[in-house]
């Protein structure tokens, strides 16, 4: 465990934060689709990609070979999930804001939907940032190579 975390760069932790946000998004999305009145605005496909995003990150960050790409793959799945979610639920916006972008309309929005949307945005942004950051620390060169003696020996 010490070696595991010891080898991780800042990017890993950013992507891990994104994964936590994604997990929160997933939970709220499931609630929205079950008890939150999501109805036809809930997409199982979007949910699947959310799960894939978390699973991909969790799986890939374990192995040295795949770890550098964990954040990127996580961000990619999450982004696809987000697009599918937007496509599924854009009509909800047209219904709620039929009368214009009013404070009253905002206040009447489905609370699960609003929370899900906010979490989605945060997850996507954080995952995109994490994807660009190094996931593993770079290996340090040996001290002998630094002073030129070990090569000669």
């Amino acid at each position, binding site marked *: 465990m010490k070696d595991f975390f010891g080898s991780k760069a800042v990017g890993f932790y950013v992507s891990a934060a994104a994964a936590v946000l994604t997990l929160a998004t997933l939970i709220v999305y499931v609630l929205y689709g079950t*008890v*939150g*009145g999501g*109805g036809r*605005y809930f997409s199982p496909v979007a949910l699947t990609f959310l799960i894939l995003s978390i699973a991909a990150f969790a799986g890939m960050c374990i192995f040295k070979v795949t770890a550098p790409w964990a954040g990127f793959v996580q961000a990619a799945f999450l*982004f*696809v999930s*987000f*697009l599918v979610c*937007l*496509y599924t639920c*854009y009509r*909800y916006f047209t*219904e*709620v*804001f*039929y*009368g*214009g972008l*009013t404070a*009253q*309309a905002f*206040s*009447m*929005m*489905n609370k699960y939907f609003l929370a899900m949307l906010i979490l989605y945005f945060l997850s996507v942004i954080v995952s*995109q940032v994490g*994807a*660009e950051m190094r996931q593993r620390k770079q290996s340090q060169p040996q001290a002998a190579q630094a002073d030129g003696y070990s090569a000669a020996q």
Partner: protein
Amino acid sequence: MKQTVIRILTLLSRVLFHVMAVLFGIVLVGGMILRENSESITPMLNQKSYIVVDTGDEDFEEGDDQYFTSDKSSVAEMKEYTGELIEEIAAGGVALLKNENNVLPMDEGDTVSFFSVSSADVVYAGGGSSGANTSGVVSLRDGVKAAGLSVNENLWNWYSSSSTIEKYGRGEAGNQFNLSFAIGDASWSEIASDAKENRNDTKGGVAVFVLARNGGEGKDISYANDLDYLTDTVDDKPVDYTNGDYLQLSAKEKDVLSNLKRLKEDGVFSGIAVLINSAYALQCDFADDPAYGIDSVLWAGNWGTTGAYAIGDILAGKVNPSGRITDTFWEHNYLNPVLANFEIANYNEVLTDMEKTGEADGGTNKYVVYQEGIYNGYRYTETRYEDYVLNQGNAGAFDYGNTVSYPFGAGMSYTTFAYSGFDVAYDDRTDEYTATVTVTNTGNVAGKEAVQLYLQKPYTAEDKENGVEKAAVELVGFAKTGLLDANGGENDSETLKIVIDGEQFASYDATHPNADGTTGTYTREAGTYYLTAATDAHAAVNNILEKKATAQQKERMDQPGDAGLVKGFDLAADYTKYAVSSVTGNPVYNQFSNADLNLYAGKGGNSVKYISRSDWEGTVKYGTDASGADLGNEVKITATPQMKSDVAIPTISPDSTPYPLYGEAPVYSLVDLRLDEIPYDDEMWEIFLDQLSWDDTVRLLSAGQRKTLAISDPINKPETIDHNGATGPVKEYNNNEENNYGLAVKNNDPDKGTTPNIYPCNGLVASTFDAALVEEFGKAMGEDCLWAGYNGLYGTGVNIHRSGYGGRAFEYYSEDPVLSGEIAAAEVRGIQSYGVYCYMKHCVLNELENNREGLCVWANEQTIREVYLRAFEIVLKPVENGGGGAWNVMTGFNRLGLEWNG
């Protein structure tokens, strides 16, 4: 340096990669969304979604594609013609409700002093989808001057100045969601002193106070502290309602009127007239209030672009008023029992968390109960009055005079009329009753008279047992004379004939067991039925009481009736003749049990005690007391698990019903069906429709707002424009120009960018009680639609004035369904004669605007059929069956019970 540049470029490329990836995703999804909604987006961008290809038909001649023609040569000429019809409607529809001391008519040259900001800022139309452009309207000043009267110019200039209107006006009628409900106006001290009391300006003429109220789509009118949509200010103006009621005089209005009385007593004015500019029935306790000394009251609704000319003519006596009001005008609004359950209520817990079905303030978790049943308007006031006179039904100390200012159908004239020779003949071959009555002008001025025919059905023991309610009188027909000469003239009398169907004698019994095992149908109970010709609903009841009441009972009547205008019929019971539709031949049985809270299977412990004439005191509830305090009498509904289940929009699952055919081999284009009237059930239509592909059918049904889509092969149907509104066309003549085949665009008319004239509110159309005039009016409207390129009109509106507070009352005709239906039928016959199809709206039980989307409306079947669907029934019946023959219907947003109208 090099490393730095490389790092920067690497960073930039990474950022660019992410940006491009995000953009790619947005474009991908956005493209899909745009493609799905292309049918709506294309016209918004003023683009054409199709092209017309000339296939080179050798037989085609120029004009072949113009199925309906106009004899007008320009938009200007068309507007001139509709302007004439609007003026005629106003002339025939304005109702004179009070006229004392010979104040009206005025003499030529007399001066009119217009008071209230509304005199210069008239409400010409309601807001929302029927909202109209007021450019080109004729002002009251111009209308009055055209009639040969003078105007107090000083006063007019003050009221009409932009500073006055801005400061004291109510604000613009505006569009949906932006209505102004401020009353505003200037108090007496705020009116410029040199304008209001200068005898040189007033010249001893008449002070005309214009009393205006606004309304429109999307919001109901405030009643009794119902300020859900209002705060302490409305459009930055303080809310100045009396008792929270928009339809009562405000303090400023009272202030001005009381000062006008003072000036009248000082001889500054010869009289005071109130001109009501409102499609919503105002509380009329002010009319006889000695504090205001009002001599005359004219109701004119929203009179349209040129209606001011008619008002001027009426004030000047060039036109004798002949309109009759189409609603009961209450002395005190709080005495209207409808208001106990007029406002929206919440279930004790939400029925569903499902998304709002439309506007943010959707009505899915809200309801209203029509607890009054059939007893809306005069059906309540006149029935309870009769029972008070006859001392039955626990009527209590019902004070008619303190309840009703002006009854349904009321209206005076500058002359007098006498009815004689009333008779009714029955034809058992056609099951029709033909009533005839001779109307004679007994006065000194020519005028027209609207005769109203009312029916009384016996309220029997069986009715009480089965919960069937019957009003003391119901309007069943009407007719209007031509212009009758003054008494002694060559044409000073006319015999009118009114034909009614025998089925009007039946009532709906929702408990009746039918032979085929179903329940509920129209029945006629045994008893004495009365028909009477009368000047209004109250006169009708008094006529009948005069005939049947005892001497002792007659002592309780407030005025004598005329038994000579009553004909009685002793009829046997009949439970089968009217159990079958006279139009379709289909059996009639209960269809709306689920909308009746007492019959709905999932009601749980909920129930409604409907108003019943068997127990007035026990069933009549009022919404507020005299001070406006809420009595909390609305029906409370406790949500049940089945309600939560039933409120959801059902998922349609395939069943064994034969599926329509799609995509069949091409046989007909639409143009092949244009020649000769092909019955709707002809096989050609089946073959034609079977050609449509599934996808085209879906497109047609899902992209139908304000148009129907163009469908190419094989049916070759062009795109159509269907537009608002309930009172007539409102959009510019070149609206949606790319797809507009109207004459204005076709001829590139210089006025094609203008809007049609503003048509009067439907209440004013109905108050003419003149079906022939209305049909001509409808033709003018249909021809106007031809110029505007309308293929379909989102109108007319045949919901019922359930009270004066329904937001869209200006789009509807009356509290009475027969008047509404017959007038609408006449108008629709006229409109459709020009090939414009009418969407009768909003079907059904859409009497409220607040939370209309998904609102649960509960009512019993008799009420739905006899009151709220009756107007639709009349206007949709084929023309050969005496109906309007309307081709289309628009559903309401609301639910019947828990089931969505759509």
